[in-house]
């Protein structure tokens, strides 16, 4: 993958995304949140990541929270916006929904752009260098390594079921079959892990994975951190002193 933030230290990207989410969650004025969302959008544009794909992922999350946002105007008391079959929607509720949508999208967009664009192994190693407990990092690396493998395994089992004319429907047969399918997936995962463990022991695995990546903060990394911190301070300043409101 070739995009702008690839050369920035992964640790800096993780910390910036974390700090940014902390700052954005603390904001509440709509104009400031629009600004925060614009910053996330700019970072995505600069990054050169495929925009459609990233925005589609963000939209998938929006689909998730759509209903909750739809309810809010009706559940927050305040000045009448409109009434529908006796249900009263308030302006305050509308703004609360917009606020949540902006926060959620700004944070997730920044996260997908800065951290989601990393190789998953890089993410694990960077977390290790950030003093996340080694056991957790190792667990993450193994999980990441085998998700695709087990997804293929699942597809294979599913294909075998399809070859035997299985069709999913709302019935006990479906629930039992999918339950067995998942059980088989667990059995195969366990047996695979036994084989992997034996192979690794053969090669002298002691339980520690070497953390190979060399990470050193360069001038450009510090510049990136400084710019992002500056933007966050600006957001907090605008929020606190109501410059825009």
């Amino acid at each position, binding site marked *: 993958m070739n995009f702008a933030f690839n050369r920035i230290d992964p640790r800096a990207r993780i910390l910036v995304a974390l700090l940014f989410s902390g700052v954005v969650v603390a904001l509440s004025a709509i104009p400031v949140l629009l600004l925060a969302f614009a910053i996330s959008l700019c970072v995505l544009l600069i990054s050169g990541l495929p925009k459609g794909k990233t925005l589609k*992922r963000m939209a998938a999350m929006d689909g998730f929270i759509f209903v909750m946002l739809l309810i809010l105007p009706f559940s927050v008391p305040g000045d009448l916006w409109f009434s529908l079959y006796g249900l009263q929607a308030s302006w305050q509720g509308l703004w609360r929904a917009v606020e949540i949508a902006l926060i959620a999208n700004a944070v997730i967009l920044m*996260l997908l752009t800065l951290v989601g664009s990393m190789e998953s192994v890089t993410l694990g190693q960077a977390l290790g260098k950030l003093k996340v407990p080694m056991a*957790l990092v190792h667990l993450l690396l193994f999980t990441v*390594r085998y998700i695709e493998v087990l997804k293929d395994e*699942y597809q294979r089992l599913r294909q075998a079921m399809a070859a035997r004319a299985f069709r999913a429907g709302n019935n006990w047969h479906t629930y039992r079959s999918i339950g067995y399918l998942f059980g088989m997936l667990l059995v195969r995962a366990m047996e695979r892990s036994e084989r992997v463990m034996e192979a690794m022991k053969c090669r002298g695995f002691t339980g520690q994975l070497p953390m190979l990546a060399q990470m050193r903060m360069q001038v450009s990394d510090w510049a990136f951190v400084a710019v992002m911190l500056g933007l966050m301070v600006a957001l907090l300043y605008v929020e606190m002193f109501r410059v825009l409101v």
Partner: protein
Amino acid sequence: MHIVDGALSGEVLIAGGAVAVAGLVQGLRHLPLEKIPATGMLAATFFVASLIHVPLGPSSVHLIMNGVAGLILGWAAFPALFVGLLLQAVFFGYGGITVLGVNAVNIAMPAIVAFLLVRPFLQHSQGRSSFVWGAIGGGLAVALTTIMVALSLWLSGDEFLPAAQLVLVSHVPVIVIEALLSGATVYLLCKVKPELIREYG
């Protein structure tokens, strides 16, 4: 059942984060180095579960299976499910960062409860009784997750009460389906590879 950033109050976020850290510490204590490859592999399997859809009426729902995760992994289910949620947030955009703690507690705590309450009964069960206990564990875990998600919303402000009620009501069929599927899964495991349920975790 992920909650996103921006909805929950600071108090709920901090409480969730604190409980999640405690759960992770306790979980990692039950995760010696030689068990990490197997646990990672099982964590990947539970991640894949969230990609498997079963029909529900005209729509469909994806598997959660946190009850089965607890029954197999015990305390190690906490870090295993946490890692899954972290990967979902980072690479798929489901959930968020500041809510990661709350989401982890809502999914993983019920798994631990299923482990502590139901696992002892599975030690010697075979056939029908393994199905029944598996179904109880799976249904209980998803029911608890639903209640905790609703509570997280409601504790963050009364304006979320209708949303919390909607979560509760809409997940009743999910609880039933998860119970049936978990029962079938545990039944098969007790038959094919009983040591997975009885010795692991």
